[in-house]
């Protein structure tokens, strides 16, 4: 599917998420995204990002929930006291916030995982006519960020081999250790990035260039797919507005 149309499909997901206030329907949107991920073979990545977003949303809610005074008080954070009131409206708002975040933000990595690099470059530099630097930044982070975990593991192994105790249970020590050991990680990345910049520039990448790579033109089938996507998203909103309200 042409990247521009994938982009519209993604906007459709985000739009649908915000056009409905019904928790079940937003869950349905997440389910649709999951099905899409599954049918395209990227379900594992989808599961990981959804889990990460869930943790992020939960963390946000931990703060948010105490700031909503409306509605009936359900429970107190510290029982038998009046500290940390949690209301039913508060719970519902936070659930809505979390699910909306998972559905809308989650559609972005989903679409990215279904979009090849060439398509990303075609979209950002070709369709949107933005300077090449933006597409390269996105592409480079997709390529390098997954390697950080492996690189960090190698650094930990190297330092453990020198006698540095990397298995300390103390959380403060652990944080201090990660910070300290991030240095070799960052330096090796900085070095790589320097060479990478030269390499891609000698291969034709010019951040200042006004010449844009050719856009990938959508074919008829792409439009059909987009239409199906939009119909699905619109029907969610339809169900919300006309059936649930």
């Amino acid at each position, binding site marked *: 599917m042409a990247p521009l149309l994938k982009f519209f499909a993604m906007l459709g997901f985000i739009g649908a998420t915000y056009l409905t206030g019904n928790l079940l329907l937003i869950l349905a949107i997440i389910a649709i995204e999951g099905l899409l991920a599954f049918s395209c073979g990227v379900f594992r990545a989808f599961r990981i990002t959804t889990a990460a977003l869930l943790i992020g949303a939960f963390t946000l809610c931990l703060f948010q929930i105490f700031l909503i005074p409306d509605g009936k008080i359900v429970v107190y954070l510290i029982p038998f006291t009046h500290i940390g009131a949690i209301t039913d409206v508060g719970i519902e708002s936070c659930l809505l916030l979390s699910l909306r975040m998972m559905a809308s933000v989650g559609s972005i990595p989903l679409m990215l995982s279904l979009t090849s690099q060439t398509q990303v470059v075609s979209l950002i530099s070709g369709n949107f006519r933005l300077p090449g630097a933006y597409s390269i930044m996105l592409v480079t982070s997709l390529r390098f960020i997954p390697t950080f975990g492996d690189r960090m593991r190698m*650094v930990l*192994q190297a330092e453990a*081999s*020198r*006698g*540095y105790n990397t*298995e300390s249970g103390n959380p403060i020590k652990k944080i201090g250790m990660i910070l300290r050991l991030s240095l*070799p990680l960052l330096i*090796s990345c900085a070095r790589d990035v320097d060479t990478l910049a030269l390499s891609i520039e000698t291969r034709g990448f010019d951040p200042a260039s006004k010449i844009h790579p050719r856009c990938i033109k959508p074919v008829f089938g792409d439009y059909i797919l987009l239409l199906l996507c939009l119909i699905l998203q619109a029907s969610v909103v339809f169900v919300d507005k006309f059936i649930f309200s």
Partner: protein
Amino acid sequence: MIEVAGISTSLKKNRILNDISFKVQSGEFIALVGPNGAGKTTLLKHFNGLLKPDTGTVTVCGRDTRKAKTSELARLVGFLFQNPDQQILCQTVHDEIAFGLKYCGIPHAEWEDRIKQSASLVGLGEKLDADPILLTRSRRQRVALASVLATEPAILVLDEPTSAQDESETIRIMEVAEAYVARGNTVFLVSHDMDLVARYARRILLLVNGRIEADCSPADFFARRELLSRANLVEPGIFALATALGYPSTSIAESLTIDALADFICASDKKESL
């Protein structure tokens, strides 16, 4: 000193090592060779507990690696990784070497001497105040080596220590390793450079598809052509030359040198010259 008994290890559901057993005494210079992907680095990581075997045991200086932490085994096993950049932490070469001394519990009073000595062994005696990050790759590799040497572990594991080095530095590093063995320690070398392996190693372990296919002296090893081709290895140039010249194979020993071949050619009065 090291006893590997029937170990098998899998990584990410792939069986990397398969029923490996061997013993290593002190004062040995062993080369671990084999094609890429054979499991060499995986095997090495068992010596300091970075990896624990699924079955079997690895005992280092009497300690079972399954029960010991890597940071504790570091006093016994010094590990030089292929990529020095995954190790370098400190802002000067001096501090980088001191880091290893600190965490291996070497008494502070000994630090300065050890740092100066190990730095000059690797040709960095004048660079103690330099920032390792700004050094060339070959020097960074030697900084990492100096850091490992300074703690004088009983077992030194060198994973491709000369890959970034020019010839003179390569020879220097190998001589340092030889001297290390002469002091009663053990060196485990992984290298693709068969010339170096033939010249310095006294024992060769061939790892192919996670199994030890050969455990013998370099002379025996390089005489076995079918082993070499199976492991996709090339015999050292000097051995190929000796064969081409008809040098008696019974005389091919660790001491095969260019001078010996020249003497062989000059052996008789009847010299053919072009």
